[in-house]
């Protein structure tokens, strides 16, 4: 991958694995290829060579030439899985940036409230976790220089994480076909030194994401039912994030981002035990970026007071 910069902590490890597998494949190809050419030349029609007898035919050969390469390839598999588990496990201190994909643009929201379209600013040396959803069709966020890529689905959150290592500006692509302007749905990731990034954040601050969520919580009328002092019998939301919620149908779910999202858009699907299914659906009334702001707010609110349900 000569032309591609290695700009994340994964890049070098992935390229290492790539080269190892490439080397193994080249060896196998060459072995077969050379043998073929040698046989083809030696036994071509008209040459006076010994062709007598049954050619050697035993189970031993078949087993050897199949199992040895296979064992080597299984080694590659194990190596790959090891790396893959790391790639799918974000560290606890990763900073969460929310991403909404739509036909055909990217919207990024930093925890400090900074919002960007089609460009993402991050700092070197600090793990970043992107929590992503789509407003319409399936998209896919891909940053080749980081060797990361993840589909983005409507109605669901997916995530990926990376630690950028080299300041610079890198291509950002949509990699899952999404209609007319699929090939224009791109942008760039700007990787800055921590100091430069801090300056950028300060210059674009506009109240944190959770703050915006707090405003929306009132504006969308959530507070009317869910706040203390409401006369409506609705669950309190303090400490909800991360807790285990018993449902009316007997199941239990963890109140993760998916649950919170679905509770807003499809409230009748998973009704908390002990409550009537009276919450209206906000589907089509609220866009994904606002839901993300609400989630950021609910998370903060979680740490403010005791959980109403069994704590995690």
């Amino acid at each position, binding site marked *: 991958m000569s*032309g*591609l910069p290695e700009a994340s902590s994964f890049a070098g490890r*992935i390229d290492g*694995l*790539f080269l190892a*597998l490439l080397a193994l*494949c080249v060896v*196998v*190809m060459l072995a*077969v*290829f050379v043998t*073929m050419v040698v*046989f*083809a030349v030696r*036994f071509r*029609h008209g040459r006076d060579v010994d*062709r*007598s*007898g049954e*050619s050697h*035919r035993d189970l031993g050969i*078949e087993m050897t030439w*199949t199992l040895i*390469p*296979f064992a080597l390839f*299984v080694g590659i*598999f194990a190596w*790959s*899985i090891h790396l*893959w588990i790391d*790639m*799918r496990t974000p560290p606890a201190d990763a900073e969460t940036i929310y991403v909404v994909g739509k036909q055909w643009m990217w919207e990024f929201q930093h925890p400090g409230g900074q919002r960007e379209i089609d460009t993402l600013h991050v700092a070197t040396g600090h793990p970043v976790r992107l929590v992503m959803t789509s407003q*319409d*069709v*399936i998209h*896919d966020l*891909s940053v*080749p220089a980081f*060797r*990361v*890529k993840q*589909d983005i*689905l*409507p109605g*669901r959150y*997916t995530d990926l994480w990376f630690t950028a290592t080299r300041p610079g500006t890198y*291509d950002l692509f*949509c*990699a*899952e*076909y*999404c*209609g*007319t*302007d*699929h*090939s*224009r749905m791109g942008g760039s990731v700007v990787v800055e030194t921590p100091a430069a990034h801090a300056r950028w954040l300060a210059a674009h601050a506009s109240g944190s994401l959770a703050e915006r969520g707090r405003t929306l919580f009132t504006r969308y009328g959530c507070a009317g039912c869910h706040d203390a002092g409401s006369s409506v019998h609705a669950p309190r939301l303090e400490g909800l994030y991360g807790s285990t919620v018993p449902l009316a149908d007997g199941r239990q779910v963890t109140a993760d981002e998916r649950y919170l999202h679905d509770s807003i*858009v*499809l409230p009748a699907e998973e009704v908390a035990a002990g409550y009537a299914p009276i919450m209206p659906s906000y589907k089509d009334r609220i866009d994904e970026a606002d839901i993300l702001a609400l989630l950021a707010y609910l998370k903060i609110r979680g740490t403010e007071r005791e959980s109403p349900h069994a704590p995690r």
Partner: protein
Amino acid sequence: MHRAEPSYLTEGSTLASWLTTHDHKRIAILYAVAITFFFFLGGIAAALIRLELATPHGDLMSADTYNKTFTFHGVVMVWFFLIPSIPNTLGNFLLPLMIGARDVAFPRLNLFSWYLYLLGGLFTVTCLLLGGVDTGWTFYTPFSTLFSNTHVVLAVVGVFIVGFSSILTGLNFIVTIHTLRTKGMTWFRLPLFVWSMYGVSLVMMLATPVLAMTLSLLAIERLTGVGIFDPSLGGDPLLFQHFFWFYSHPAVYIMVLPSMGVVSELITASVRRKIFGYRFMVYSIIGIAVVGFLVWGHHMFVAGQSMYASIVFSILSFIIAVPSAIKVFNWTATLYKGDITFGAPMIYALGFVGLFMLGGLTGLFLAATALDVNLTDTYFVVAHFHYIMVGGAVMAYLGGIHFWWPKITGRLYSEGWARFAAILMFLGFNLTFFPQFLAGAEGMPRRYYRYPDEYALLNVLSSAGAVLLAASYLLPVGYLLWSLRFGERAGPDPWGAKGLEWETASPPPPHNFERPPVVTDGPYAYVHP
């Protein structure tokens, strides 16, 4: 010219006699004509795609036109060329001959399958004429159900119908192989081509209904808006992908198993030696057919399926490489102590082995989850499946056409031209698709009609290769048609090959054999010099 012996070709020459025939050999020809038509239709779309990508800016057509072009290319090539090509032409022609039967088990059903194929094709072409469809051949939801404004339902109906054609062909072949083998033709005396037809028929019959079901659900969702795949109604967009790949991964084996069968025949005949490890070759066909059903999830490593599911699909994908490797090693070993001639069929076969190996080994990169993250949905995948399907399946198909051409038509083609075309195809192919591995490894996404300048050089190479490749596809049309009139008469067995099909006249009489042949020995009974 002297009078030809009575053959299936001379049995009535009116159009009606062809369109109502029940003779498997004539039906094979009907398929060949229709399939060739669709191959060139898909090829024109391919040429347009490469022309557009010769520059980075997207200056030839609009984004929508481009999206419709690659969708049309994919739909036609997959369902109207790759899947039916070898089974319905060579398979139809050769299967009864190779097992010593007079025809397939259900001759009328066979003709009916051809009409279904045409009907499906009619829908697809109509769809194109009305403005096309822009979903990609994969029809991913919710784009296809909620967002695309094109003729999705029409396209899907076409594919649905052609799917039934393939189910019926599979059924016909399986019953034929089970019930119509001639005296002495035991299971382990079947030529490998027949085994590959058996394997592929099983996959067709078991996998295609899933496609039919999936496409029906898609059409229902699109027409009525019930929440099957639509997340805002509680549906699951990934469900579609699971269903789709549950069919479509086995489908890639529908494309490649027949090629393996053909290549086995070409190699053993050109080497005049028994195929090395016949039984292993049979087991690996069955192995591929079975394990092929268990690896669909490797198309979804970054789609949002669970980490653990991906690990399981990854190891299964490594395992399915084993039977393919056995094939390659055994073909190579067959050359040992052979008496090898390098006619056009052999050149095609060797070309197949090379391209198939590169396609298969790059599959391992995609099967390794951590590497797939970077490579999936890029041109690396495009190169990978073209190596297997275009490099592999088309090479094998053409090799087979050349090998059995004298049997089918009774004439010999120009050997010089045929070798030239085969070599040109190999070179053109590599020039077209090898650069795409590099572009993909450097991150160029697929299905882009414009792209960043840094990928320009690789794309120009690829477009140049496509010109050579196109020439190499047109050449055989020329010299093969020429041979129909001017080619030398072939005689029953011009290559000195073994197999029941070579024991009857070329072209064969209407009922294949004067009297049913009796088999007393295994296949490929070449005597050593």
